[in-house]
């Protein structure tokens, strides 16, 4: 067995207290466990069925309300009341009620550190991999077990290396890079693997882009997708939390099952056409499709750089579709307001709120009707995902989404600027 280790092996060796290799099934300690409203009540129900509302380590538990926020119906309000009661009863300190942010955004803004094991009751937990954490979503029962015991079991995934080389072109962001990877490998290639992403020129691929790619790691069906910590990671944690960290690094020469390089300057503006995330097309191939609704937001693309792009494109223009914009957290909303982005978007005719999943999951705040075409910066275009099973969802980055809102058809910024 090689003594040179990948990031995956290093993190899981530390978390299990054993020297692990891919394929091993091991018990690991979990550093952060989290849930939101829609899965959270289920987690607590499982704890009640086991018969113990015992929290193994209260400081490791994070709860944020996002899916049913603010509650669109009575049942949603009840679910939140039920969780608030639990929060009080067991004394949860890291609790973020309505009006704070989407769980995955809250986790990276406030809690997750490189090298940690993070498990949350939501599949897009892979988002935290942008900081170099081993982050996985799990179901309510698994998460309940972790809340109670601090531990879970995992199969150590096969490590796959992706290298990002060069600089992306104008308007090309993390979304297009994620779609490029999905175009190349399709949605089931990375099953059972952990993808470790190395950025050759770190500042060329900022944290917002990394968060988008890591978020879409679950769309690639990867066990986890981690960015190997570099100067961008350290700066992000320093500037947002004032912390200096010394992350675990993979060994040079560690063995990966395979390796793939993305030349960033060759990535074009892409969309995922209905009804699959790997049905990737160049935006020009679909540029005459008329659009009814545009959604800019979600844990995939609801961050400052996304809002900046939207503001640049919509400045002094009006939207032709209904256009809903949802910054991923209050923090993102506030910063966008300070920079004038929110004002521009509202002037353009967008409906803006913050910190809710809303239309991403077909929950509320803009549901797609039968036959409607949606361009969304979120991560899933499964049948029925955003409302009617007869709706057509195109997934895009912020530039294509914003231009499509302005022109009322799928388009790229060059068409208006």
């Amino acid at each position, binding site marked *: 067995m090689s003594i040179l280790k990948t990031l995956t092996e290093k993190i899981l060796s530390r978390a299990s207290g054993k020297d692990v290799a891919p394929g091993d*099934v091991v018990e690991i300690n979990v550093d952060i466990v989290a849930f939101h409203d829609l899965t959270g009540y289920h987690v607590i129900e499982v704890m009640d069925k086991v018969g113990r509302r015992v929290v193994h380590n209260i400081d490791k538990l994070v709860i944020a309300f996002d899916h*049913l926020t603010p509650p669109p119906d009575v049942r949603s309000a009840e679910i939140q009341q039920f969780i608030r009661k639990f929060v009080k009863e067991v004394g949860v300190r890291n609790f973020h009620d309505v009006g704070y942010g989407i769980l995955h955004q809250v986790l990276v803004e406030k809690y997750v550190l490189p090298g940690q094991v993070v498990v949350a009751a939501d599949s897009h937990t892979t988002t935290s991999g942008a900081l170099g954490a081993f982050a996985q979503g799990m*179901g*309510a029962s*698994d998460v309940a077990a972790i809340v109670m015991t601090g531990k879970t079991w995992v199969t150590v995934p096969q490590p796959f290396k992706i290298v990002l080389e060069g600089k992306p072109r104008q308007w090309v962001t993390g979304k297009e890079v994620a779609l490029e990877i999905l175009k190349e490998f399709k949605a089931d290639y990375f*099953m059972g693997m952990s993808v470790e992403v190395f950025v050759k020129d770190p500042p060329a691929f900022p944290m917002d882009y990394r968060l988008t790619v890591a978020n879409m790691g679950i769309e690639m069906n990867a066990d986890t997708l981690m960015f190997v910590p570099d100067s961008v990671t350290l700066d992000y944690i320093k500037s947002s939390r004032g912390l200096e960290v010394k992350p675990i690094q993979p060994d040079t020469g560690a063995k990966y099952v395979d390796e793939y390089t993305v030349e960033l300057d060759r990535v074009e503006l892409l969309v995922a056409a209905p009804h699959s995330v790997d049905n990737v097309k160049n935006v020009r191939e679909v540029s005459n499709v008329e659009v009814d609704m545009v959604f800019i937001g979600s844990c995939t693309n609801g961050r400052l750089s996304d809002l900046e792009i939207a503001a640049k494109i919509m400045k002094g223009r009006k939207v032709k579709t209904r256009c809903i914009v949802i910054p991923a957290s209050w923090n993102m909303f506030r910063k966008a307001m300070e920079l004038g982005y929110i004002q521009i978007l509202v002037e353009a005719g967008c409906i803006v709120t913050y910190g809710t999943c809303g239309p991403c999951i077909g929950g509320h705040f803009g549901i797609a009707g039968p036959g409607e075409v949606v361009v969304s910066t979120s991560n899933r275009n499964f049948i029925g995902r955003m409302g009617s099973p007869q709706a057509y969802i195109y997934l895009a980055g912020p530039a294509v989404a914003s231009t499509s809102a302005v022109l009322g058809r799928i388009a790229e910024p060059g068409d208006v600027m």
Partner: protein
Amino acid sequence: MIVRGKVIKLGDKIDTDVIIPAKYLKYTDPQYLAQHVFEPIDPEFHKKAKDCIIVAGKAFGMGSSREQAAIAIKAAGVKAVIAESFARIFYRNAINNGLPAIVCPEITKEVNNGDEVVVNIETGEVIINNTKTVKCKGITGIALEILRNGGLIEYLKKAASGEGNR
């Protein structure tokens, strides 16, 4: 553990939004969920599901972490899911809710809709129409232990009482 049933065949990449749409996630009651299983592709599915075995292609259960996907399938009376591959989260959710999930890269080539199959959960042996045998991957280790206890809740209850005795 042996389960048997009639095959209902589904395709590749069956996602969790198709298994149980998000609008039903505000409840966990198995009978309620069973009524809506696979609703977007076949609103009548729950009527045919009793005592069947689902056979599917790649990445079955991909998408969301919603445990209701596994609960709904089990509560509709499905005895097991055999798929070429499973999404990681769904696989765990299935086992945690006592629904056997068998990995079998060859299975979609070997069986047809309506075939009778007998599945040995531990050895992974699948007998089709009493004539042909296909070797799939048996469930072992911790997953088998959880399954044998009928799911994670029972498994954790046992673990908790074990701790009490110490």
